[in-house]
């Protein structure tokens, strides 16, 4: 495992008496693509600005490469930032924009010319040297902002929602561009976004934040498949979060029906939250007019039981075609389940619903409001 490049220790920050970060602890490894993910106001941008030096923490330390840089000015730090709205120097042409940092460091003009050319090639904007920033599209301006940062060969590139202002198609393209850039440059990226899809696509590590606390740190797979609490589950992708009771290890009761699961250590007869991803629910169509005591019903139920001894019965109440799959609402036991399926079940049709034990994610119920925002110290 590569070493810790940035270490944030017990960072606390408040603005006007409002706590923004509360005892935040986080380390960032060399060459990692780390994403700070969370809704607006969760403290992700403040965390980035503290790393960049634009904010000072009220308490706590920022360690960079073994040295304490908590109070070091931004211009003395070996990292560069790509700002949300590009922040290009509109009074300079593209070449001068990119050369800005190199001129400050008094590099030779020959070196600068080479570097500018290299950076423009890297962001696929060769020949743009003499254009003015205003004449470029949003996507191009963002590429220039990235080029302007990376010519300085920073050890870390900080990106503050850099794709936020771009349209969907361009955003997708730029996501791949950023992954390519990161691999070519071999440097650390710290990326801030509120877009969970963006985070899942690009990151090596995702840090999910809410209300100044880190909720979960993990790989995209971990975060998606094993959310540690309802907030993470809800924030990352669509999910069904329902009240349930852990009967004993590997057995959970949801709406009165017992399901096999794989989780242990929650105790017995304990209330828990259960997260079920919409794509994990399997639907089995009940033919019209079939009652629960008929052999027809048993035939369908037997099929459903192959996946898990328990199953639920419900009615499709809504249907939307989403391209790859259908998105359906299934009313069962008074709860509206969100289901994604490649098979079509028309509105009004009765279905049995079941899922694999592996796809039942059990979480402890938060005992108080405070615990809902789990402090990183507990992780």
């Amino acid at each position: 495992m590569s070493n810790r490049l940035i270490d944030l220790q017990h960072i606390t920050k408040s603005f006007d008496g409002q706590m923004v970060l509360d005892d935040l602890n986080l380390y960032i490894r060399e060459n990692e693509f780390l994403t700070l993910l969370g809704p607006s106001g969760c403290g992700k941008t403040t965390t980035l600005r503290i790393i960049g030096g634009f904010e000072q923490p009220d308490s706590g330390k920022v360690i960079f490469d073994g040295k304490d840089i908590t109070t070091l000015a931004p211009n003395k730090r070996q990292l560069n930032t790509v700002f949300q709205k590009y922040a290009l120097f509109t009074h300079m042409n593209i070449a001068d924009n990119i050369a800005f940092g190199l001129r400050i460091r008094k590099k030779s003009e020959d070196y600068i010319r080479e570097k500018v050319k290299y950076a423009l090639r890297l962001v696929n904007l060769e020949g743009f040297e003499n254009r003015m920033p205003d004449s470029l599209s949003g996507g191009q301006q963002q590429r220039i902002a990235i080029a302007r940062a990376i010519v300085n060969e920073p050890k870390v590139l900080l990106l503050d929602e850099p794709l936020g202002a771009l349209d969907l198609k361009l955003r997708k393209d730029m996501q791949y561009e950023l992954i390519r850039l990161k691999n070519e440059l071999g440097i650390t990226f710290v990326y801030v976004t509120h877009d969970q899809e963006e985070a899942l696509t690009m990151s090596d590590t995702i840090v999910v934040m809410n209300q100044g606390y880190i909720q979960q740190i993990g790989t995209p797979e971990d975060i998606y498949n094993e959310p540690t609490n309802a907030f993470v589950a809800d924030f990352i992708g669509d999910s069904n979060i329902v009240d349930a009771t852990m009967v004993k290890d590997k057995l959970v009761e949801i709406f009165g029906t017992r399901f096999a699961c794989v989780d242990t250590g929650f105790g017995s007869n304990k209330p828990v939250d259960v997260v079920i991803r919409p794509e994990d629910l399997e639907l089995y169509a009940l033919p019209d007019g079939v009652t629960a005591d008929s052999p027809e019903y048993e035939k369908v139920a037997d099929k459903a039981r192959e996946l898990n001894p328990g199953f639920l019965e419900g009615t499709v109440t809504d249907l939307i075609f989403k391209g790859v799959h259908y998105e359906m609402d299934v009313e069962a036991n008074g709860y509206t389940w969100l289901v994604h399926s490649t098979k079509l079940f028309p509105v009004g049709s009765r279905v049995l619903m079941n899922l694999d034990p592996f796809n039942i994610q059990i979480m402890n119920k938060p005992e108080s409001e405070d615990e809902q925002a789990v402090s990183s110290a507990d992780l």
Partner: protein
Amino acid sequence: MKKKNNALLTGPYLIWTVAFIVIPLILIVYYGFTDENHRFTLDNLSRITDPVTLKALLLSLLLSALATAVCLIMAYPLAMILSRMKSGASAIITTIFIIPMWMNSLLRIFAWQTLLERNGVINQLLAFLHLPPQHLINTPAAIALGMIYDYLPFMLLPIYNSLTKLDWNVVNAAYDLGANGRQTFFRVIVPLTMPGIVSGITMVFVPALTTFVISDFLGGSKVLLIGNIIDQQFTQVGNWNAGSGLSLVLMVFILVSMAVMQHFDTDEEAAGSIL
């Protein structure tokens, strides 16, 4: 139909422009290039080479340049501070700076006269402290002071405006790229606020160069500016031709200085490297 209506709407402005700008300008040009007998002459223009007039012009240029420079040096940091303040606080301070402008300009200059004159407030204060009285009024310095006091808000407001429009992330970007405070100021902040600086300079330099009120009150008849000379030609000598001729010469100086400023405005690169 619609087009015709729109054309009609421009009518009042057209009449205004012709009546109060174009015709007076033509008259000044006409007077400037003719003598009392309506014959073409360049004598009115060459009056500028008269030693007294020339001295007044040079002093005008010097004092207005000085006043502009001092206004710029005073207004820029203030505008920086104001633009970084919370909007409520900056609004109060901006208003304080503007309030004197709500008073009659004559009154403001007259107030300076009572402060500076031989038995004025300042000298009374000095006498009270048993210090020798100072010769303050009727000096070029007094005129420059009056100009600075009178025109400072005209420098402050355009610079403040352009600073509030500045995206502070651009400043952060400069820091981020390794620039220190001074480099960020001269390479990024100043060039990006150049339009405000240019209009501020224009709004101070032009009225300062042509003023005769300030020099009248604070310079007495001892210190003459070109504005006073032109004023005398019209009101005392009654030689409209000479007054118009000198006005035209002054206009040329203003046009040249504005052209220079415009050059800085459009070619910010050059401005950045000079500063």
